[in-house]
């Protein structure tokens, strides 16, 4: 018995030692060299090389910083992984954040306000940041909790090879004839599907689960999932019912959009049109599509519109070195580095939102495409929907909308039910 007690005590002491040593490992010491870690969702070699180049230049000026690492996490589970790292006592010093999780991070106080650090940085030109781009990332005191390092508009890429194979006009011909609207896109998509078996149009990343990507369509109907103040569900508004009727018809009646459970990738040549962010242009090089075009989102019944996706970069308050992290963010996003990052991430700086700057960094896109499509979309675009408690709202709406993606659904009734279930979450 004595031995059993001794063994148990030893095991407990070992467990406690492990726990305490794990805790103490994160305690920063003022004299020790500082290591910074930033979680990102890209594993693109070119992007990581650029980040490392900027980090190396920063380290050269700041000998107290021993290392800066960029930690790529899986995009699909990015926010979950990040919060798990926080819960596990292993928070990164800096993190990318998607626009849909911005309200949670900003309102919770998880991020260190950046204003003081940014304005104290020589040559930062804080006023150059567009108000529209920073709106989502300001806390209730108006402080900038994260820097919107990417403001990427949703656009349409058209596969003219496939349109020609189906005997349909090219996207620019449609635009020139004033027919660049959703009805025409669906009609032509339907004909492409009938002629080639390929998909007509795709809303990339929607996949009948990530419903907020449909804002790139329903904004054309003047619809929104909730009111401006975020308190009232408007998923059952007449405009939203019309938008979902259009989408349902496209998937189930006209066959212009792939139905649920069907995969099609525009960049593999599977579709005539795709709605996606401009940053996906990099996929065109290996797509095998020889003739493609870039267009703004098609006009909806409510007229022309644009939608942007955003990504923010913030310093986590729970990180071991929040001050140093904020300082590195100031360096990472200064005018010079912002221009470099514009190669991959459309900047939030108004002085850099010109076709000239963007074309210097984006060899795939012509200056005309950038001037006609990208710059206006960034200037006027509405940010993809976001709300506090976004993960639960996302899940609640997704499970409600599942009832809509069947033959002959009661669209208005389904959207009423979605609002009933999501309303308590919006009120929180």
């Amino acid at each position, binding site marked *: 018995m004595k031995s059993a007690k001794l063994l148990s005590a030893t095991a407990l002491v070992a467990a406690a030692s492990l726990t305490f040593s794990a805790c103490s490992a994160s305690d920063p010491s003022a004299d020790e060299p500082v290591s910074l870690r930033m979680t990102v969702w890209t594993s693109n070699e070119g992007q990581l090389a650029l980040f490392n180049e900027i980090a190396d230049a920063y380290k050269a000026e700041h000998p107290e910083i021993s290392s800066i690492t960029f930690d790529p996490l899986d995009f699909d589970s990015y926010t*979950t992984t990040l919060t798990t790292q926080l819960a596990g006592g292993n928070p990164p010093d800096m993190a990318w954040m998607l626009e849909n999780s911005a309200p949670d991070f900003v309102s919770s106080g998880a991020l260190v306000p950046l204003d003081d650090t940014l304005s104290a940085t020589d040559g930062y030109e804080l006023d150059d940041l567009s108000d529209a781009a920073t709106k989502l990332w300001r806390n209730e005191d108006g402080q900038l909790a994260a820097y919107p390092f990417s403001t990427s508009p949703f656009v349409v890429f058209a596969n003219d090879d496939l349109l020609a194979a189906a005997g349909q006009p090219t996207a620019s011909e449609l635009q020139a004839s004033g027919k660049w609207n959703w009805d025409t896109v669906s009609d032509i998509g339907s004909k492409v599907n009938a002629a080639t078996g390929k998909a007509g149009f795709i809303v990339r990343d929607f996949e009948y689960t990530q419903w907020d990507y449909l804002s790139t369509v329903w904004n054309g109907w003047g619809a929104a999932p909730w009111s401006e103040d975020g308190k009232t569900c408007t998923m059952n508004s007449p405009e939203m019912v019309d938008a979902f009727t259009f989408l349902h018809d496209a998937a189930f009646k006209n066959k212009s959009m792939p139905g649920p459970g*069907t995969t099609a990738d525009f960049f593999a040549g599977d579709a005539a049109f795709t709605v996606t962010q401009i940053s996906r242009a990099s996929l065109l090089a290996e797509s095998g599509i020889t003739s493609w075009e870039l267009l703004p989102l098609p006009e909806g019944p409510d007229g022309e519109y644009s939608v942007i996706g955003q990504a923010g970069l913030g310093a986590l308050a729970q990180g071991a070195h929040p001050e140093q992290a904020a300082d590195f963010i100031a360096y990472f996003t200064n005018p010079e580095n912002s221009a470099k990052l514009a190669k991959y991430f459309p900047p939030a700086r108004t002085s850099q939102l010109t076709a000239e700057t963007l074309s210097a960094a984006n060899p795939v896109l012509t200056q005309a495409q950038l001037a006609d499509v990208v710059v206006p979309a960034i200037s006027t675009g509405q940010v993809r929907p976001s709300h506090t408690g976004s993960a639960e709202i996302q899940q609640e709406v997704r499970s409600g909308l599942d009832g809509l993606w069947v033959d002959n659904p009661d669209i208005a009734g389904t959207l009423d039910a979605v609002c009933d279930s999501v309303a308590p979450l919006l009120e929180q």
Partner: protein
Amino acid sequence: MSNVIDDAPVVLAAGASPRAAARPAAGKRRRKLSQGDALIGYLFVGPQVLGILLFVILPLALILYYNFHEWNVLANTFRFVGTENVERLFSDPKVAPVLGATAIFSVGLVIGNLGLALLLAVLLNRKVRGITFFRTLFFSPVVVSLVAWTIVWGFLLQDNGGINGLLSIIGIDGPNWLREGPTAMVSVIVVQVFKNVGLNMILFLSALQGVPREVTEAASIDGAGRAATFGRITLPLISPTILLTTIITIVGSLQVFAQIAVLTQGGPGISTTVLVYYLFQQAFEFHRFGYGSTLALVLFVIVLLLTIVQWQLRKRWVFYEN
């Protein structure tokens, strides 16, 4: 507990025999040997005990502790909420359908897995040419990565996937397997049955090969048919293995996560949201670690109760327990 050595001092009395004089030395040797054995034994069980303490007992204790707290990971706040999470459990309208989906999945998996495993074991319990190939074939999914297996099945079960492609050859317009409530649950169960049936099959095969031939031959001589021999002789004799596989499969069925996360994400609606997946959503997606801990306790209690019930019932139907 039985390794107690008498520590009382031994005094060699005058006139005592040499054999008696040798006794203390032998006792010392035995004690030394016993202590050595004990140390080796503790060294062997030490890592296991430490692992259980760190990864089972400690998390269980923490879950119980978190159950009474609410932890906002982003705001880094941790506050005592008493029984709030337990009250939430009883007022949460999703708990009943989630437990229902969990029960359907478990029952479907246990019946499907054990039934198919036993059938395969009986079919493969023969001395025919190439039997090893078939045994390997049916066992091979067990060693395949679970996520890889599930992703491949996810492609096969798409509306335009391989299963419907095969069905269309024979003129059947297959359903959208993962997007319709009933077929989604059936699909997840079938994918899991095929993944692990090989393990239970091997256990059954081993049990079947342990059934004495003379017993079945005697039954046959007494005029019992194949079905009667199997039902009345073979099944009772392999009942300990049936108990083992039933417990393993039920416990495993309650822990299913990856298949749901990869194939359906709990949908359509919440028709395939089983308890572990719901727990994951609450804790890691909605950041409600306190409520997630309460759900984990529910899972623990369910597994414990089911195991106790089966253990108690074993005396009624497990052959060697009588």
